[in-house]
């Protein structure tokens, strides 16, 4: 029987919705094939596919430094990291497919510029220290978000997150180790590390999305257990962990208003430049065009390969039938 996605015009919608919300309240996971509101499904497809695209596009800024890694060990670690990102993209596309959307359709939406991916990847990686900084700050921010999503109500997404978080935690440690090493390295290495922190700090804070009062999706996402914390809560957790560690390493943060608040135990940040955030989200970041173009080129140049695979598989099938 085809899966039922409920809409408010269904005669039994309210009854089933109440049942569905009660399950979530009890902490049960919603699984593929269970009844769910169409809006729940739509929000999940949006989030999971964006997340998958982020992994795939995210391979580009870091992948570009594999050929320039300064030691054999760093090179190997970076290849493994970018490979993990490809793997995350793969699980996430599978998780989204459980909601009845195909990988091809999701990719098409990405290449047509209709689907979003994390804006952070629309910033350039200018030096080798960016690799460490992305691991520490960008993966650090992603982990905060993903740890929250690991508790989400949709089973396949939650399980993908558990697995992904474990790998991201490893990347986060490697990134931090690099930046700390360069922070106490030569003058040039220190300068490189500081410059990278200066450029990535604010974009990393923007990764959690707009402030709660400006985030139209948050309310329904929290009620349905897709998000279990708000953007501002997750952002605060990120700052509380990372700001003191960066300062302790002898580096500075590009926020003159940053201060520790004794009363709440929080590190309070200055105003975030949301104009910049929306500019980048809407396609005007430094790398939006290049990133999308790189994906389109890879897809177009791979077309004949995919056709060959299909033709080969079809021939094999015919031979198998003939035998």
């Amino acid at each position: 029987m085809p899966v039922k996605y409920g809409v408010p015009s269904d005669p039994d919608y309210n009854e089933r919705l109440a049942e569905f919300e009660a399950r979530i309240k009890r902490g049960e996971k919603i699984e593929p094939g269970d009844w769910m509101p169409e809006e729940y499904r739509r929000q999940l497809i949006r989030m999971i596919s964006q997340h998958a695209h982020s992994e795939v596009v995210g391979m580009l800024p870091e992948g570009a430094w594999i050929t320039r890694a300064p030691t054999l060990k760093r090179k190997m670690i970076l290849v493994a990291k970018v490979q993990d990102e490809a793997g995350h993209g793969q699980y996430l596309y599978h998780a989204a497919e459980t909601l009845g959307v195909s990988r091809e359709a999701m990719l098409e939406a990405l290449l047509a510029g209709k689907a979003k991916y994390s804006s952070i990847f629309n910033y350039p990686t200018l030096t080798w220290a960016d690799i460490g900084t992305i691991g520490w700050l960008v993966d650090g921010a992603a982990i905060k978000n993903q740890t929250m999503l690991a508790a989400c109500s949709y089973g396949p997404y939650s399980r993908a997150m558990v697995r992904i978080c474990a790998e991201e935690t490893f990347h986060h440690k490697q990134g931090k180790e690099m930046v700390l090493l360069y922070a106490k390295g030569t003058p040039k290495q220190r300068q490189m590390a500081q410059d990278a922190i200066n450029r990535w700090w604010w974009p990393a804070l923007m990764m959690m999305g707009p402030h709660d009062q400006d985030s139209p999706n948050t309310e329904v996402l929290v009620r349905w257990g897709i998000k279990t914390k708000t953007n501002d809560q997750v952002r605060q957790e990120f700052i509380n962990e990372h700001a003191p560690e960066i300062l302790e390493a002898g580096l500075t943060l590009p926020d003159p208003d940053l201060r520790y608040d004794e009363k709440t135990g929080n590190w309070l940040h200055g105003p975030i430049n949301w104009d910049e955030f929306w500019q980048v989200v809407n396609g005007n970041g430094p790398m939006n065009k290049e990133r999308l173009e790189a994906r389109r080129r890879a897809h177009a140049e791979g077309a004949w390969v995919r056709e060959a695979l299909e033709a080969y598989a079809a021939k094999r099938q015919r031979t198998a039938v003939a035998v």
Partner: protein
Amino acid sequence: MRSEVREALIAKLTALADDEVILAHRGSEWTGHGPILEEDIALANIVQDELGHATLWYGLRQQLDGSDPDQLAFFRDAYGYRCCELVELPKGDWAFTMLRQYLYDLYEALWLEAAQHSTYKPLAEAVQKIMREERFHLQHTQAWVERLGQGTDESNRRLQQALDMQWGYAQQLFVPIPGEELLVAEGIVPDLLPLRERWLEHSTRHLQNAGLKLPINPGYQPTSRAYHTEHLWSILAEMQSTARWDAEAKVW
């Protein structure tokens, strides 16, 4: 170990490692740009293994002369590198990359199989560590050659074009380096001549089965590893740019 044997072994290990480093460099250029996500993952695996092999070969050299593997990889110029020309060629399209990887993997798998009986124990042990993964590479790239060869007219044409280009270059894998005969006489490394026979037999069968024709005129066949293609200088300029950027840096 006699000093001339030791010198020859150092040179051989360097050539083995350099091949892996440069081939890994070319392979890594695909990361994020592969034709399907699954292949980004598979090729990244192969690249990691090759870097692992390079580390192993440089490590054996280090035991002999105390040289530092990262110094060798990141501070030698094109005059010092001893890779073969096949691995330097630009990555080309997917057919070019898969065919090169196949020709190389077949050579490496056969070489390792023979080298597991090396009389030089550290080498025999190193070979044991990596033989299994090399067999996986070969399975993977062998399957790609078959799929592309038997896929569509276009994939067959592209693969044939790659073969016409690479066949002569691949023969360099079987050209001994100066002094290699000393190593063969001592049973330290396998003799390349019979390996070449086996490689020719396997590759010819597989390529023909995939619907390809071996080039009648193999074209240019490089012999000396002291000289390179015009690409190596640029590869090294890119690869070494971070390591050389800060002369004072001791650790990365």
